[in-house]
């Protein structure tokens, strides 16, 4: 009993902080799938790009980590808008297979470019001093960094909740997700909402990439390596359901952490077994039909 309580507390803490990173990275993916019906296998690109910029800019420009993180997110946001215009928009209406291929091609090309620019190895990521200490939880050390991740996650959650549930922008966006042609018929400029949602998704992925760099190390292969994880969340979330994707992300984060804690020799085995079972059980998404 004395052993179990701290173990469970730590699994909860580590699992939730990991789940939050997954959630922040995957929101954009869930949105694009829900809004634009585009299976975007290149979404991890925005996360890794944000991470690289945030950790490279301080030395290049001589600015603090926080300033460079904000700058990186804004840059990725702009790049997201640009790419949506020149690339992702054109995938609309293609078959799932074609979307998979085009976006995985984009992903490959990006990985190559990132390697040319920064080399093939894992980027050394050093968070500033104030994030590197530990706090004490139940008499054991717990990294401040993980606390920071959870705080960032909560702020983003709050922001998204306000944006989606309490602004007319959010209501319009949800209308576009639920019934696109009806939204169009009422005079909503659906394409504009697509662009904005895509940019928001890209920016959030960048935040996820930056704050998550301590859990998902930044390297050129990042978008491909962690693709199964991001796709798991999207597959289980159903079309464009952000609340479901939060639940799913936390479940995946917790199961992965618990699995690695109790049976470390199984590695990623646990979480993917869960994925297969859940997708087979509810192919339309985990929470579909449970309002």
């Amino acid at each position, binding site marked *: 009993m004395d052993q179990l309580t701290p173990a469970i507390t730590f699994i909860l803490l580590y699992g939730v902080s990991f789940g939050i990173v997954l959630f922040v990275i995957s929101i954009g993916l869930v949105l694009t*799938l829900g809004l634009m019906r585009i*299976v975007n296998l290149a979404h991890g690109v925005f996360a890794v790009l944000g991470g690289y910029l945030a950790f490279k800019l301080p030395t290049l420009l001589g600015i603090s980590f926080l300033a460079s993180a904000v700058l990186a997110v804004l840059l990725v946001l702009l790049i997201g808008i640009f790419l949506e215009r020149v*690339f992702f928009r*054109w995938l609309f209406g*293609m078959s*799932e*297979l*074609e979307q*998979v*291929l*085009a976006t*995985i*091609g*984009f*992903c*490959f*090309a*990006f*990985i*190559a*470019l990132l*390697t*040319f620019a920064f080399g*093939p190895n894992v980027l050394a990521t050093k968070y500033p001093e104030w994030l590197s200490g530990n706090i004490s939880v139940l008499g054991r050390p717990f990294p401040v960094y993980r606390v920071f991740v959870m705080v960032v996650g909560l702020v983003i959650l709050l922001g998204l909740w306000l944006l989606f549930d309490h602004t007319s922008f959010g209501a319009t966006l949800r209308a576009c997700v639920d019934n696109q042609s009806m939204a169009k018929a009422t005079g909503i400029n659906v394409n504009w909402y697509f662009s904005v949602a895509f940019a928001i998704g890209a920016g959030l992925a960048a935040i996820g990439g930056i704050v998550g760099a301590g859990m998902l190390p930044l390297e*050129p292969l990042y978008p491909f390596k962690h*693709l*199964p994880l991001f*796709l*798991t969340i999207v*597959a289980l979330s159903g079309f464009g359901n952000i609340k479901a994707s939060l639940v799913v992300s936390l479940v995946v984060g917790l199961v992965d952490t618990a699995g690695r804690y109790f049976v470390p*020799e*199984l*590695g*990623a*085995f646990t979480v*993917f*077994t869960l*994925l*297969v079972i859940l*997708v*087979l059980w509810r*192919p*339309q998404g985990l929470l579909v039909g449970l309002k």
Partner: protein
Amino acid sequence: MEQNKLTFWRDRVGVIWWFMALACYFFFPDYRAFGASVLVMTLFALSFGLALGFAGIISLGHAMYFGIGAYVAGRLALAGWQEPISVVLISGSVTGVLAIGIGFVILRLSGLPLLMVTMGLSVIVFEAANKATSITGGDDGLSGISFEPVLGIFKWSLDGNVQFLYTLVWLAVVFLIARRLVASPYGLSMAGIRENPLRMKLLGAPVLRRLVIMYALCASLAGIAGALLTQITAFVGLQVLSLETSVDVLVMVVLGGAFSLYGALMGAPVYLIVKYVTQQWNPFYWMLVIGVLLMGVTFFLKGGIAAFLSRIFQNRHTG
């Protein structure tokens, strides 16, 4: 008339393809070992092309069967069963039977969920193989594999002569079977299921059963390709089970053209040769090339190389 022209075109491409494959054997003797591995991947791509192009089964986990076939062949050889042809057939049967079980469960899905589940399964198999070092050798793989001469006559050689011709014969046999299958009533009903599963069901076709049979057949061909890879390289590594291998084969098929059997035959060599050449310069360079190629094919060249060639050829004859 139109139909005749099409078959004529196809046959001609076929003749040219097999002729070129043989020509490679004579003109590039230094590359026979590489050529044999290209032929194995072509066979693997053909197995995936059948599933994707003719049954409409999209999958990100086809390497699972390829890899299992490779490991079965490796284990058999290490256990002392070294007669090559029977080993290939056993490996193919194992993956085929496995796919019947898996198929009945997963082929109820389609589209994105199917993509996820196949990917999830292949990640699970990869992780399992990674941990089960006593069976798979883990990261080190299985080495020290040797096979008896083919038919008791042709000895495996270092320069890859036997390997090349042996895999070429296997590919030809499988290709003929596949072509026969696609043209059969069963193949036509497959096309119907691909285009409109609901309507086929309403017509009374046992959709799930037919899909499972097709899936098992493709898995068994993938297992055969895997076993051949073990035989020509005398080694099995974890790479055969990886997600990259599944993506590779998907790219090959689509690059070549998913809706023609020749798609796999053209996509695989083009992909592998581009990969081979560009990797000489920089290991990451091919990712850029293949990425751009993929985007190009989806946007500008629907139907891949096979459709492109067929368009050129038909223009020459009609116009």
